[in-house]
C-alpha cells in the first residue's frame, strides 16, 4: 500500500489529506453525516481507505468499529480499490430472466476472480448490481458506468478482448 502511505501517513506525523480536510469543512461533525461523508470518500478514492476511516472516526467522534460496520454494511462502499475497468453485470430480475447470470459466469471464468474482487494486476474488477435501470436493454453490463445493452456471452468476450489490448 505504498500509494496509500503517500496520500496520508498512517502514523499521524503530519501527512495531510487535502480531500478529507475539504470534506470536513463542508460537513458538521455530527454522526448523522457519516454515510454522506463515506459516499464522498468512496466517490473520490474509488474505495474507503483505512486512513480515511480513522480520520472520520476522529472528526465525528465515532468509534472506528462502528464506521467499519457501516462501510461493510452498504455494498456501495468498498475497502479495496476497484480495477481500472470495473465491470458490473446487472443481476436484476429483468436481466436475470434474459440470461445475465451466464454473462456473469463467463466474466468470472475469464478473469478468474469473484464478484467484489479485483484482478491481481489491478486492471479489472467485477461487481454485481441490481438493476441499473436499463431494463429495456436487458441483459446489460456496465464498464466504468458505461452501459452495454442486449449483452451476450460473445459480446462480453469481445469487450474483454478489447480492454485487455488497451492495457
Amino acid at each position, binding site marked *: 500500500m505504498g500509494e496509500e502511505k503517500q496520500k496520508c501517513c498512517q502514523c499521524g506525523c503530519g501527512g495531510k489529506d487535502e480531500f478529507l480536510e475539504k470534506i470536513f469543512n463542508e460537513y458538521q461533525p455530527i454522526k448523522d453525516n457519516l454515510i454522506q461523508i463515506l459516499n464522498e470518500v468512496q466517490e473520490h478514492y474509488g474505495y474507503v481507505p483505512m486512513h480515511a476511516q480513522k480520520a472520520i472516526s476522529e472528526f465525528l467522534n465515532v*468509534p472506528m*468499529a462502528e464506521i467499519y460496520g457501516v462501510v461493510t*454494511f452498504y455494498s456501495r462502499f468498498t475497502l479495496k480499490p476497484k480495477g481500472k475497468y470495473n465491470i458490473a453485470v446487472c443481476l436484476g430480475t429483468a436481466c436475470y430472466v434474459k440470461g445475465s447470470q451466464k454473462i456473469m459466469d463467463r466474466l468470472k471464468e475469464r478473469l478468474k476472480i469473484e464478484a467484489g474482487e479485483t484482478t491481481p494486476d489491478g486492471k479489472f474488477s467485477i461487481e454485481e448490481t441490481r438493476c441499473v435501470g436499463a431494463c429495456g436493454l436487458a441483459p446489460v453490463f456496465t464498464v466504468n458506468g458505461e452501459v452495454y445493452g442486449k449483452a451476450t456471452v460473445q459480446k462480453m468476450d469481445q469487450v474483454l478482448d478489447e480492454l485487455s489490448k488497451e492495457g
Partner: protein
Amino acid sequence: MEENLVTLTIDGVEVKTKKGTTILEAARQAGIDIPTLCFLKDINEMGDCRMCIVEVEGRRGFATSCIQTVEEGMVVHTHTPNVLEARHVILDLIISNHAKDCLTCTRSGNCELQTLAVKFNVLNVEFPGEMTKHKIDDLSPSIVRDFNKCILCRRCVAACKNVQKIGAIDCINRGFESCISTVGDHSLNDVNCTNCGQCIQACPTGALHEKETIDDVWVKLKDPEAYVVVQTAPAVRVALGEEFGMPIGTNVTGKMVTALKRLGFDKVFDTNTGADFTIMEEANEFVERFTQNGVLPMITSCSPGWVKYIEMNYPELLPHLSTCKSPHQMFGALVKTYFAQKEGIDPSKIYMVSVMPCIAKKFERQREEMKNEGLYDVDNVITTRELSRMIKQANIEFEKLEDSTFDNPMGEATGAAAIFGTTGGVMEAALRTAQDTLTGQNLEKIDFEQVRGGDGIKRATVNIAGKDVKVVAASGLANAQKIMEEIKSGKADYQFVEIMACPGGCVMGGGQPIKSSKIRREVDVRKLRADALYSIDEKSTIRKSHENPVIKQIYAEYLEKPGSHIAHKLLHTHYVERPKYNI
C-alpha cells in the same frame, strides 16, 4: 395512580401493571417466564434473536415481548403451538451456525444457549448448513474472542458501545456474513479496547472469555523451587461462592482461604492489605495536592481498565491521575521486597498470583512500569471464575470447607479496604484517612453515605477540617467520560474523583461469575455483592486504613512514611499516552 395501571391477560392470568412495562416484564411479574437470548436488562433491548416472541390476540404476526409494551385489555399467549414451533425453528437455526463443542467450552454449564437447547429438547439440527468461520483472536492479554460460538445477540456490542461508550467492537458485514468484530477485523489488542471485560459478562455463550492462565499456576504449584504466593481482591470473596451454588452476595472469605491453602499455595495473603497501603499513599497524595496547590481534582488509579481508557482518550488529563499503583500491584511489590527480605526468600523464586474480579488486571500486571529490579510485581492474574475452576479441578468440595484466616505477617486488613470492591468505596476509605490526617484527630464519623449505592455518578461535598471538599465517584466508562468532559471543559470543581471502569465497581468486574440474563433481570446482583462488602466493613474492628497494625509496622520497619522515596519506588507508577488504534 389507577390511570397509570394497565390490565391485561397473559396465559389466562389477569395482570395489573404499570403503563410502559414490557410484555416480558409483565409476564415475569405474573410468574410467567418467557425465554430470551439477546435481551439483557437495561443494556440490550433490541428484539433481534426472536426467542421472546408471543402471540397477542388481534395482532398480525408475533409480538416481541422484550420491547413491546403492554396495552389495556391485551390478551397475550406465551406458548401456543405456533409460538413454540417458531421458537424451536429459531433455536435450531442458531445452533445450526454455532460451534457445537460444548464439552470443551469454558461456558459449558453456564451457557444460555445450552440451557435453551436442553429446555427445548433439541436432539438434532433440523436445518443444517454452511457455518460462518472465524479465526480465534487470542492476542489480547485479557480477552479471547471465538466468534464461531457467537450467536449475534449483540449484547457485547451494547455493553461496549452503549454502557461503556467504547465501541471497540461492533456488528460488521451484512446478512449471513454478519459478525461482531473490530475495525478491519484486527485483534482487540490493537484497538481501543480497555480490557474491562463487560463484553464477557454480557455474552450468553463462550464466544467471549478471559485469557485463561491457570495452567501456569498449576505448573508453579508443582515446581518445588517456586515459592507461590496468592492474594485475593476484596470483591472476589463475595462472589466466588456463586460458582458453587451459594446465594449471590455470600461472603466466603474463610472457605476461600482454606481452599487456596489446600491448592498448595505457600502463602495466602489478602489484597485488602494492599488496599490499605493504597489508601495510605493515595490519601497522602491527596492531602499534598490539596494543601500544596497540586493538580486537582485528583483521580483514582486502581482500576486498570480506567487507566488504559484515560491514557487513550484523555492523555491531557493524565496529571490528574493519582500515581498510586493499584492495591494488588503494591502488595506484589511489597511481597517481593519487604516480605522476601524478612523471610529470607530469593525474590526471583517468588511467584505472585493475584485472584481478581477483573480481567484488565491481566493487562496491567505486564505493563513495563509494574516491575521492580527486573521482576514483575505480580506474575499471574487469575479471575474469580478461574479460581473456581482450579478448586473444581482439585475436586475440593468448597461448600463443606471449614473457615481459615489469611497468613501473616501480611494478613491483616481493615473494613476500609473491603469496600474497595464497590463503587464509592475507594473514595470513602480515602476520606476516612484524609480527614484524620487533615484534622489530626480520630474522627468517629466514618460512613460517607453519599458515595454509596448503585448510581453511576455520585456527587458529594464533604467537610474536612473546616474545608468543603467536592468529590465524585463514577463507575462505568460512559460515566467516566462525562466527568472527564466536565474536567476538560473547566466546568468541574471537584477535588477528588473516584473512577471504576466497571458499572458498579469491582463487584461487577469482568472476571466475576457470569450471571444469566434471567438472573440479571430478576435480582440486583451488584447490590447483593456490594452489601456483603459493606457488611464486612461494618463488622470489622478496624475500619480506617491508617489504623491497620500491619500497615503501621511495615511503614515503621521498611517504607518510612507515605510518599517516601522507597514508597514511591515500590508503590507508585507513571502513565503513557496510548494510541487508540495500532492499525
